[in-house]
């Protein structure tokens, strides 16, 4: 491993990771803020540094179609997209898990239109949360690179064989220059075995894929996919443990920061946790018992690990980066509340939606949320607080 970190834009680090993983096929359509990832990959292919087929498709629907086909043919397959591009893939996104094609996709998270907005929130991934993909969230540049390498290992594991989306916040991660430790090709090869598909299009042993599922088999096909996705959590944890042995950096499906003795826990996903950590340090200096629990793995939802991480808390402040229109809770809060509903002792759960369409999330926001989460009756509020909304 390179002894010293190098300054690198996170998008470039992600593309370098895809190169180090020897991807065979990249099929993608450029869209802000994912553009630098696929631009750099096309350069790497053109310069002969990555021996891959780069398919410059005419739409994201074609990108995902190509990816499913190439993955089924046994090729290590990568794509990246964002917002409207992900929306245009929607029809194909729901197919890949049932077909068990382990496509790896980086989503540079961006708000969905309307109004047209190119900046960061989580509305794109939330719009496809039920599609059946494994979903990971990265917090910083190093994690984005490490998670890209891990993504191929997890998705292609024969016990998983499912598509995986790695979510990195648009601009706040994708366009930032961060210190990155770049592993060597040999180190990545030692960690990532060659792709051996469990479902393969092979002329010598032909099969049909993408079949009709009649009322007699559709339910069972969906159940088989859900079973595979649920079981993948164990493989994710194993891959994290193996990654630590190879690269020294440790990851968990649910991350905690100063949460062990916290009375108030802030629950969140993605890069805002970096800001939140600074705010938590400040609040801790003033004697506030506050901490962070961050979901690294969003699908399958790590229910047991999450419960264990928040069990002792008095107040849970769940932070969402997306509004479920017509519903008084954000998507993460909805799920957290439902998982804890049956527990006899559960924390006061309040919900905060912020950082929509690229609006800045500051340390002050976390101070504010912590205060609000401690207020009497916080757990009984009928709906989330839209932090900073001008009414």
């Amino acid at each position, binding site marked *: 491993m390179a002894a010293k970190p190098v300054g690198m834009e996170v998008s470039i680090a992600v593309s370098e990771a895809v190169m180090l993983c020897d991807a065979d096929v990249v099929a993608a359509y450029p869209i802000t803020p994912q553009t630098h990832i696929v631009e750099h990959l096309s350069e790497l292919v053109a310069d002969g540094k990555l021996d891959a087929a780069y398919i410059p498709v005419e739409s994201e629907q074609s990108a995902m179609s190509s990816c499913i086909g190439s993955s089924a043919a046994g090729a290590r397959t990568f794509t990246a997209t964002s917002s409207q591009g992900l929306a245009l893939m929607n029809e194909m996104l729901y197919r890949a898990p*049932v*077909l*068990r*094609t382990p496509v790896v996709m980086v989503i540079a998270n961006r708000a969905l239109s309307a109004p047209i907005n190119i900046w960061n929130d989580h509305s794109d991934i939330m719009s496809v949360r039920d599609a059946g993909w494994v979903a990971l969230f990265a917090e910083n540049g190093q994690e984005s690179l490490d998670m890209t390498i891990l993504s191929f290992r997890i998705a292609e594991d024969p016990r998983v*064989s499912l598509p995986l989306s790695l979510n990195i916040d648009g601009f706040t991660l994708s366009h930032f220059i961060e210190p990155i430790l770049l592993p060597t090709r040999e180190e990545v090869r030692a960690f990532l075995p060659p792709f051996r598909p*469990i*479902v393969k299009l092979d002329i010598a042993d*032909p*099969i*049909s*894929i993408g*079949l009709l*599922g*009649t009322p*007699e*088999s559709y339910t*069972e*096909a969906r*159940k*088989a996919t859900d*079973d595979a996705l649920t079981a993948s959590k164990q493989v994710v944890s194993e891959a994290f443990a193996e990654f630590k042995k190879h690269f020294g950096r440790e990851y968990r499906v649910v991350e905690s920061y100063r949460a062990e003795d916290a009375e108030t826990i802030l629950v969140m996903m993605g890069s805002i946790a970096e800001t939140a950590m600074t705010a938590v340090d400040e609040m801790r200096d003033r004697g506030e018992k506050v901490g962070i629990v961050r979901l690294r793995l969003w699908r399958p939802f790590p229910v047991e690990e999450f419960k264990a991480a928040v069990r002792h808390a008095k107040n849970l402040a769940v932070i969402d980066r997306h509004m479920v229109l017509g519903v008084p809770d954000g998507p993460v809060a909805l799920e957290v509340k439902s998982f804890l509903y049956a527990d006899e002792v559960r924390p006061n759960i309040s919900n905060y939606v912020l950082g929509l369409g690229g609006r800045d999330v500051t340390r002050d926001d976390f101070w504010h949320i912590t205060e609000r989460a401690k207020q009497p009756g916080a757990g009984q509020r009928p709906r989330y607080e839209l932090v900073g909304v001008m009414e």
Partner: protein
Amino acid sequence: MAKQIDALMKVRDLPVGFTAKPGSTLEFKTGDWRSMRPKLDRGKCSYCGFCYIYCPDGVYQDMGKDEKYYKPDLDYCKGCGVCAQECPKHCIEMVLEEV
């Protein structure tokens, strides 16, 4: 034998990735969707072959120069009635499929 995924099947018995071996349609008898079946009046048939050509499922078999007629394979005939519509001799009648 190719696994059938049109019949009731347990989750654990489904082929991984919901795939099928080629030729599985041989065992997937689509004819049971039919509510009407074609009935031929051989006396009027001129052996012109329109039914054979027009049938969208290609289920008519040529019975040869001695028999001089075409016979639908009812395992696959879906009862669309195209043959009856196209027959120039009006010798195909669509009759209700009795179960």
